[in-house]
């Protein structure tokens, strides 16, 4: 049989970055066998990061060269490049965070799983076919199920189980939706949806598909798994999930809304309503949290609401600003996680709010960095959060969704209380800490903190979004 009629060399190049990430995972696993002690941690992380950076370079070569590979199942272009780079950067960040927490003998496996999950997310960014979407989603999720349960805590096992069951259920919804879409159009290609007439099957199919999307984006009311899973999972995994999963799913959503179904915009209105509810309830939920990871989970629910709102008008500017805010969110959120990683020890992630009491006295730079990231998440100037919110507000008003813009403002107002509460705890003078804190023995998370802070500031002052980001479907 001659495979050449199906796969050309160009198809292989389109997938090259994904293969590089996946192959790096294999290298990590093999090298891990020959290392022992503390060194293996840094060797594994180093190899992982090197592979990701190399993949990032190869990925960047595809910018400006749109190409539909594998009979239009995987479409490369500015859109997939931008989202894949976001995935790669977020993965590098989360590898930096693994430096301080977890057991030495788990690092090899967890690094490999993280890399494979990242490969899944990258597959989703270019997926232009229902099957590819599902393939990417499952590749992404399978690694995460294992990663969530990695820590030796009851909450971690609970998180893994919860994530497995609920996520599988959401995948089920999504798959059912895909089946109905297939039934409505007779094809698994997203291109078949263009111009598809509005039928009952199509509406239900899109609805079920969006339920799956909303679950993965943890939009209200499909968000209930998020705080528990984020709290239980190891810190680096939480950081990974909070950005990489979202980037992959947002790419799918954007391609779906912009390229596949531009003519049936009204079908997406329920999703915008969910986004609006997420902005309100995510921030309300964040108010009462006493654990930083839970707080960031709720804040992530709200932040994803902001990003989804930007897509509401289905304008090209809206998509660009959603990407801008997603990038900003990456640096703000992962910067905050990096600060938590700085305070973590091997068996205790320093994420409880109590551990932050009087931090400004003990570690003034870490406290300042945390305050900066939280203020950025709250959307205060002169950070990327502020600029991103302005851009989203502007494009939402422009698209005619003034009510969404108003709810965004309300949500932001609520969120101030949640974020600034943490800052207040850090800057409250503490007479003397009750326990003697031992800090992580590594400076690697500092790299994440510094890079994140510089990026948040620079993006706030000079917002820049690549222009060629419209998703394609062939």
């Amino acid at each position: 049989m001659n495979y050449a009629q199906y796969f050309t060399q160009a198809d292989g190049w389109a997938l090259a970055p994904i293969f590089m990430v996946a192959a790096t995972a294999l290298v990590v696993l093999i090298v891990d066998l020959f290392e022992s002690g503390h060194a293996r941690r840094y060797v594994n992380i180093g190899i992982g990061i090197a592979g990701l950076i190399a993949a990032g370079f190869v990925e960047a070569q595809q910018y400006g060269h749109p190409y539909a590979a594998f009979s239009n199942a995987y479409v490369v272009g500015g859109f997939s490049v931008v989202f894949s780079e976001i995935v790669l950067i977020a993965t590098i960040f989360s590898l930096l965070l693994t430096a301080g927490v977890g057991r030495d003998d788990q690092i090899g496996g967890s690094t490999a799983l993280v890399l494979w999950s990242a490969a899944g997310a990258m597959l989703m960014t270019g997926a232009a076919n229902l099957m590819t979407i599902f393939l990417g989603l499952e590749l992404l999720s399978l690694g995460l199920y294992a990663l969530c349960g990695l820590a030796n805590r009851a909450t971690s096992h609970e998180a893994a189980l919860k994530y497995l069951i609920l996520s599988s259920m959401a995948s089920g919804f999504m798959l059912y939706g895909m089946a109905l879409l297939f039934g409505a159009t007779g094809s698994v290609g997203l291109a078949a949806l263009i111009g598809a007439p509005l039928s009952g099957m199509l509406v239900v199919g899109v609805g079920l598909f969006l339920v799956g999307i909303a679950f993965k984006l943890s939009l209200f009311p499909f968000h209930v798994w998020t705080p528990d899973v984020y709290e239980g999972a190891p810190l680096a995994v939480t950081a990974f999930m909070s950005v990489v999963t979202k980037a992959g799913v947002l790419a799918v959503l954007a391609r779906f809304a912009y390229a596949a179904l531009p003519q049936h915009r009204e079908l997406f209105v329920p999703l915008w309503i969910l986004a609006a509810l997420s902005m309100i309830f995510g921030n309300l939920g964040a108010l009462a949290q006493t654990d930083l990871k839970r707080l960031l989970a709720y804040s992530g629910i709200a932040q994803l609401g902001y990003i989804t709102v930007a897509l509401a008008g289905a304008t090209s500017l809206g998509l660009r600003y959603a990407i801008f805010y997603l990038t900003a969110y990456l640096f703000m959120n992962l910067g905050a996680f990096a600060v938590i990683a700085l305070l973590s020890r091997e068996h205790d992630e320093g994420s409880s709010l109590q551990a932050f009491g009087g931090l400004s006295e003990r570690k003034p730079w870490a406290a300042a960095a945390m305050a900066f990231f939280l203020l950025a998440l709250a959307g205060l100037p002169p950070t990327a959060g502020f600029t991103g919110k302005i851009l989203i507000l502007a494009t939402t008003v422009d698209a005619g969704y003034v009510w969404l813009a108003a709810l965004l403002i309300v949500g932001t107002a609520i969120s101030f209380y949640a974020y600034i509460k943490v800052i207040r705890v850090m800057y409250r003078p503490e007479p003397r800490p009750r326990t003697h804190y031992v800090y992580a023995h590594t400076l690697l998370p500092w790299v994440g903190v510094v890079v994140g802070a510089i990026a948040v500031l620079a993006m706030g002052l000079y917002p820049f979004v690549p222009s060629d980001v419209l998703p394609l479907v062939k």
Partner: protein
Amino acid sequence: MLIPALVLGPILLGFAALLIPRHAHGAAKVYGYVIALAVTIATIASASAPDATVRWLSRPFEAAFHLGWTGIGYWLAVLLAIVTLCALVAVRASRQRDFVASILVLEGAMMGVFAAKDLLLFALFWDLMLIPVFFILVGWGPAVATAWRYLLYNLVGGLTLLLATAAFGIAYGSTDVIGRTGVTPLGDVWAPWIFAGFALAFLVKTPVWPLHTWMPATYADLPPEVAAIVSAVQSKAGLYGFIVIGIPLFGSAMHAAQPLMFVLGLIALLYGGYIALVENDAKRVVAYSSLSHLGLILLAVFSGNDLALRGAFVYLIAHGLFSAALFLVLGYVERREETRLLDRLGGLGTRNPRLAGALVLPALAALGLPGLAGFAGEILILTGLYRAGYVWPAVIALIPVVLAAAYMLRVYQGMMHGPSVADLPERPDLNWVEGIALAPLVIAFVLLGIQPLPVANGLTFVAAQTATAQGPAPPPSPTPQVTWVTIPGSMGGWVLKQVVYPTQAPQK
């Protein structure tokens, strides 16, 4: 590049202050004081400094880092510099280094509000200036709840400002509009809503009844040096916004909102004056007197009358000067006697004559004694209101002027006169550092009282735009009538050149 340096300098140098050793209180004070002095000199010298612009956004609307002076913005910046200098001379706090650093950052952020010529940049600094005050309230105030209340009220205002700015940018295509002539007014579909967003932010900041509830506790809980800055300068940001954003860009919406604003302004005037009359805490008396005074300025800003607007400029600066001086002196008293309740204090004047003198001057300015700056502003506003045909508002606005005399003298009498209270600690009289901290303020409000013209005229661009404020389309060439107004009863008699533009009927 002088103006950007005035904005960024204090912020960066404020953060740099954290490099000073923690316990070097004296060094921190000298550091802050020297920087504030340099900023004051540079601000005064920057009157004709050119604007600085760097492009910021080009889509979805144009925005720029555009810093420069509008007429009143320059005077408010000078006020800010002087008040900050005085506050830093007077400063005495625990953790002094952090305190000085916060004040410097606050100065830079507020300088940015008055220098911003782009709406988005204005909104940016508007939010930024809340943060240092919040942390000062948390770190040095007695109750954290006050800090939250301050922050939440003002941030909600800041967020509506942000939404309005975004909407303005979308509707107009650019936010680089402050102080720019020839901006086409927005249509009637957008303008009222966008203006409502701006107005809410400005009214919370000023504050105006019924949005004022954060204010008395904030002023009372802030350390006196920062209370001086916040009440003297930060509260002016809202009225400044009405003047440089509302009047030129939203003329017809301002006109439509006039009845509501008159009612709010008059309620603030009377309510603030009445509470000031019965309140026991001296700092709260001054806080409520601010509510009353700023209500008067709100009337002037919305009267659409050129003379009243000029009076508003004068009164903005005058109120800043005397309220800063009042808060500083009340701080001195509280530091000595460890209370500021009027029924506890008494008879300080006999032992502390210099302190009594320091209190009486700003109190006289506040109650509108002719010859001091407060009177200059009040008389111009009231005359302007009367000339514009608002006879009854002008008459009602006279009542709080009388009330001001009552509550200011009540504060003075309660503290300085009467029998000495036996169980109050005996402390030394005003020392020379404290005196020097007050001197610039006192000199300034005396000078402004004698010669208010530079400030009153320092708004040329707004005055030119009041003509267009009444309707969207200005006539081809309005011929202004120039009249010379002599203010009766002024020392030496001020002569004001009043430019009256032909009134136009609002367009449908």
